[in-house]
Structures are given as C-alpha cells and as structure tokens.
C-alpha cells in the first residue's frame, strides 16, 4: 500500500512538472502585448529575452541602448499613421473639480508654477536634465553588467525627445480627442465619453480657465495669493522626465520665489526626492503639498478617485479613462508632448518601424509571434502602440498567462 501511494505521488509530481514546462504564455494575435504595471520590469524582461521589445516613457527608453540590452527603433511622435501622433499630447496636469470649486485661486497658482517651471526647462535643458537625474536617481550611477553610466548622461540623452509645452491649444485639444477615438476603437470607453461629440468630449475633459488666468498673472508679473488651504493637498506624479516641470519647480524653489513670488519649497532640503513641500505665494505659505509618486497613470487616477491626491501630473489616456468612469477631475493644461519610444532586442533585424512590422509578420507567420511590453493597460504607450500595430495590419492580443 505504501508503495502504491508513493507511485501515485510520483506520477502526480511528474504531471505537475510537465504541465508547468509546457504551459507557456499563449500569444494568439500577430503580436502579443504584456502589461507590466509601470516600466520597472521592462529592462529585466528584455535582457532575459522574455519579451522582444517594449514601449515606455523616457528615460526608460534610453536605458536599453545604454545598457546594451536593446535598441530604439522609433520615438512615439513617428509612430503610424504618419503624422497622426506628431506632437501628440502625452502628460497633462489634472485637478479635482471639488478643489477647483472650493479654491480656484490655488489651482491657478499651481498652474502658474508649472508654466514658469516649464519655461525654465526649455531655457535650460541640460540643467533640467540634471535636476531630473537628481530627482529620479540622486544623480547616481546606473550599473548594467560591466557598463556603468551616470544617470545624468542617460537623462541628457532622453531630454531632446521630450517636448515640454503647456498651452492647451485647439490643436492640442484635437490631439486629445484623437486619443478618445483610439480608446473607443479599443473599446476602453464605456461611460460618459463613450459616444459624445467632439464638443461634448472637450467640455467633459478640459477646463482651460486656470491656464488662462495663470498666464494673465504671469504676464502681469504678480501671482495672486489664494486663500490658505487647511488640509494637505496631494500631488501625484510619475517617475519620468515628463514631469520635469514639477521637479524643477521644487528644486529651484528659491529662484522661482525670488523671481516670480511663487515657490514649492521642500520641508526637507536635503532630500533628493522631497515628499512634502509648501506652496508659497509672495512668501506666504498657502498650502502644504504632499508629493506622491506612482508607478503608472492608472494608479495615479485611482488615487485621484479616492481623493488621496487632488492634482496629478499624469498621462492623458488614464485621465480620459478616469473621466469616462466618472472620476471628478479636469485636464488643465499640457505638460509635454511625445517623449516615449519603442525599443527592441539588440539582435532583432528591425531598425525602424517598417522593418519592425516586417519582422513581426515574419515571426507571426513562423508561429512565434513577438511579445511587446507596455506599462499599463490604457496608458498612452499602450494605446499608441496598439493603434500603430493595427494600422500596420497586425492584430494585437494581450498575452494570456
């Protein structure tokens, strides 16, 4: 009897091992997409050949060539359909409508701080890159195997691919609406934006009042001090150079304070990544801001929905999706355009998008479809990649595990 039991157990063990070995992830379309909840796992997955490439925001695009694990084949502005994504909106500044209603002057002031910081970044790009390197990595070094490179260098490479703009122009708003179309085709909008007209969509998404008023204050050379906000205000952001304006506003607070009378002054001056700052207008503290980083846009929107944060420096598709589901936020202005890229393994035959598509088709025909990683379902990178792939005649399916 004991022998029988051992035999049965042995068979069970063999079966389990066999099942584990043969159950690989099933890719059913021409190209498989794997969602990684942020950009963190991407370099590792690429280096261990578990994915064939990824799409990410900067500076994680540059990490691949610097670490010799991959090469950039295109930046997001050049993704097909040709011309569609040029100057595509990427990150935006969003705010909760209840705060906009209860303290509009505070929202305007934040807008002004952001605009001024963006101008600084455009005027001083290498200093901007350095500040971002400081914020993201304490200006430390990155070690990839035998290669050690300074984070400042990586950010320097990444910066030119990001366009820092704020104006919520007509063209920009139309660019946002393009995303709504793309999201609808991907069946990602099922709420208030599922079948609105363009005008209705824009009304639901945007409130450019704070931008206009902020520009007016800057033009007049004086920021109006808002009434003090009693409770701390949460400001969510992503660990990406797209949010450079926020980092610069905090790190160069003294400059902005002296030159414009508005500053985001950190409580802890020695911290590389301050998490509490005071919003000062004309030297007076009007609010305490809690800076809360997150791995990806959808996570940030979740925090906005629970009113943990009232401002978000975030990608636009997650914001659109959140508004569609009823989260009470509005998009105030742009933070940057473009600034993402597609990376593939070093030994891939692809060198640009067209050769990438050929490669994908070859692999799919051979029964070994390629796998691409994206930072989150519904993120801007996800939307753009899927749309571009489908435009190029490739079907896309999420990888089933």
């Amino acid at each position, binding site marked *: 009897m004991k022998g029988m039991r051992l035999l049965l157990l042995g068979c069970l063990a063999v079966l389990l091992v066999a099942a584990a070995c043969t159950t690989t992830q099933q890719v059913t379309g021409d190209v498989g997409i794997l969602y990684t909840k942020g950009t963190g796992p991407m370099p590792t997955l690429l280096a261990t050949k578990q994915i064939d490439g990824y799409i990410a925001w900067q500076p*994680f695009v540059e990490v691949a060539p610097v670490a010799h694990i991959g090469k950039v084949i295109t930046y997001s502005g050049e993704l097909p359909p040709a011309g569609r994504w040029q100057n595509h909106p990427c990150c935006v500044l969003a705010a909760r409508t209840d705060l906009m209603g209860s303290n509009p002057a505070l929202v305007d002031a934040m807008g002004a701080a952001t605009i001024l910081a963006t101008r600084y970044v455009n005027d001083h790009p290498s200093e901007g890159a350095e500040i971002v390197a400081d914020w993201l990595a304490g200006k430390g070094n990155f070690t990839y195997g035998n290669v050690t490179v300074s*984070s400042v260098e990586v950010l320097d490479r990444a910066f030119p691919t990001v366009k820092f703009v704020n104006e919520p122009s007509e063209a920009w708003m139309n660019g946002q609406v393009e995303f709504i179309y793309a999201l609808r085709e991907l069946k990602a909008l099922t709420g208030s934006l599922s079948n609105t007209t363009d005008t209705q969509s824009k009304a639901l998404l945007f409130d450019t009042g704070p931008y206009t008023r902020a520009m007016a204050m800057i033009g007049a050379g004086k920021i109006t001090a808002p009434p003090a906000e009693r409770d701390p205000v949460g400001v969510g952001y992503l*660990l990406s150079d797209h949010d450079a304006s926020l980092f610069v506003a905090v790190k160069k607070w003294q400059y902005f304070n002296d030159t414009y009378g508005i500053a985001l002054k950190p409580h802890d001056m020695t911290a590389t990544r301050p998490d509490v700052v005071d919003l000062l207008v004309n030297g007076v503290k009007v609010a305490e801001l*809690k800076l809360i980083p997150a791995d990806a846009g959808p996570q940030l929107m979740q925090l906005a929905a629970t009113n943990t944060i009232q401002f978000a420096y975030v990608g636009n598709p997650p914001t659109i999706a959140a508004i569609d589901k009823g989260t009470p936020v509005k998009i105030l202005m742009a933070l940057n355009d473009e600034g993402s890229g597609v990376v593939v393994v070093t030994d891939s035959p692809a060198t640009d998008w067209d050769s990438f598509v050929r490669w994908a088709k070859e692999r799919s025909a051979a029964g070994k479809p390629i796998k691409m990683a994206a930072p989150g379902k519904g993120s801007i990178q996800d939307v753009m990649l899927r749309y571009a792939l489908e435009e190029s005649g490739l079907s896309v399916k999420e990888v089933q595990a």
Partner: protein
Amino acid sequence: MRRPLGIILPILLLIVWEIAAQSINNQFILPRLETVVPVLLAPTVDILGTGSLVHNALVSLERVGAGFLVALAIAIPLGVGMGWSQRFDAIVDTTIQLLRPIPPLAWGPLAIAWFSVGINSMVFIIFLGAFFPILLNTIDGVKSIKKTWVEVAQTLGASERQVLSKVVLPGASPTIWTGLRVGFGIAWMCVIAAEWLPGTTSGLGYLTLYAYNFGQMHYIIAGMITIGIIGIAFDFLFRSVEDRWFCWRGLER
C-alpha cells in the same frame, strides 16, 4: 548563533553564486558578487537618491514596530478572551477564520482608501500580518493551560481577574511568545511588500522596487540580503528571550 554548522551552507551558496554569475554573464539574471558586496559594505551611502541601506532599514523597522505593537495590543486580549470563554470564542471564531486566509497585501487598495496613503495604510497591512499568529497562539496558549493550575488558584481564593492575570497569562506566555516571534517575522515580510504600494518614498521594500525600476539588480539583491539579515537577527533575539525566560516550559513533565 545556535548552530555554528549553519554558516557552512551560506558560504557554499556564495561560492556557487559567484561561479554561476560569471558563467551566466547577464546581470539581469544574476549580478556578480562583487557588484553586490560593495553595496553591503557601504550601508550608509545613498542609493539612487532614496537614502542609504541603514536609513531605509530603520524606516522599515519603525513601521514594523508600529504595526506589530498595535497587533499585540489587540490580539493578546482578544486571544485571552477567546481562549478563556467558550461562548465568546463561538461568537468571534467564524469571523476570524474567514478573515485569516486573506493575504495582508490583498487589503492594499482598501487600506489606501480607508487609511490614506503613507504610514497609516502600511501600519494596517503590517498589523494584519502580525495579528493572526499572535491571536492564534494566544488562544492556543490559554486553552492549553492546565486546569489544575486554575483550580489551585480558585481554591486559594483568587478572583477571576486574578486567575487571568496571575495564572492564565503567565501560563500561556511561552506560547504567546512564540506567536510574537512568528508574528514579527510575518510583519517584517509584510512591510517590504507594503512599501510597494504608492505613498511612500523610503524603506527597504521601496528601495528594492525603485532599484528594479532602473534595472539595478545589484541594489535589489543587496536590499534582499539586508532584509534577510534583519529578519534573522530578530528571530535570534526572540529565541534568546525564549531560552532565558521560558526554560520551564519544555521541562515541565
């Protein structure tokens, strides 16, 4: 350390690690020992702007301490009540058994919604991790009190409160202490995972995740080793108290 023999295997593992890392030659799979060791030898140096190993270890320990103390404060009285009163146990037990299998991390999103991001939600998750081992061990300890001890106390004139404080608690304390040891170990695991939730910018768990974002595997491994060392240090502390204060337990006929 209890067993000097126990040091042999880790040393062997280190040797195997270095050989394997050299031959695999892909730092994303296994960083070489010489990239990890310098990090451990410089525990006060800042890592990626997130602070040093020492600083982050202290932050994580603070959080564990807080959650652990809250768990203690609730689980021990509750456990004594459940172990002592069958009626109370019958009322509460089903709920406890329903909640117990839920991994503390699964409470993450709710924790953030209820207790706001930051230390409060993390302390909640750590509390959940430590709570059940402490509770279950307390109940077990109380239930396994020898009836004779209680009856002796009663016949000598002890009130119910005195029985609880002078007989039940001391009698159950070795088992409760084991619960504390196990609970702390789980709380320590939970803090690392809890720091992966949004709302924190420090701690060993946060550090490892941050390093992961930039593919800095050697920092991740250094972080993991630090986590392990602290874990074993505390286990050792708990055990030495056990040996000193509760030596009577094993030797009771």
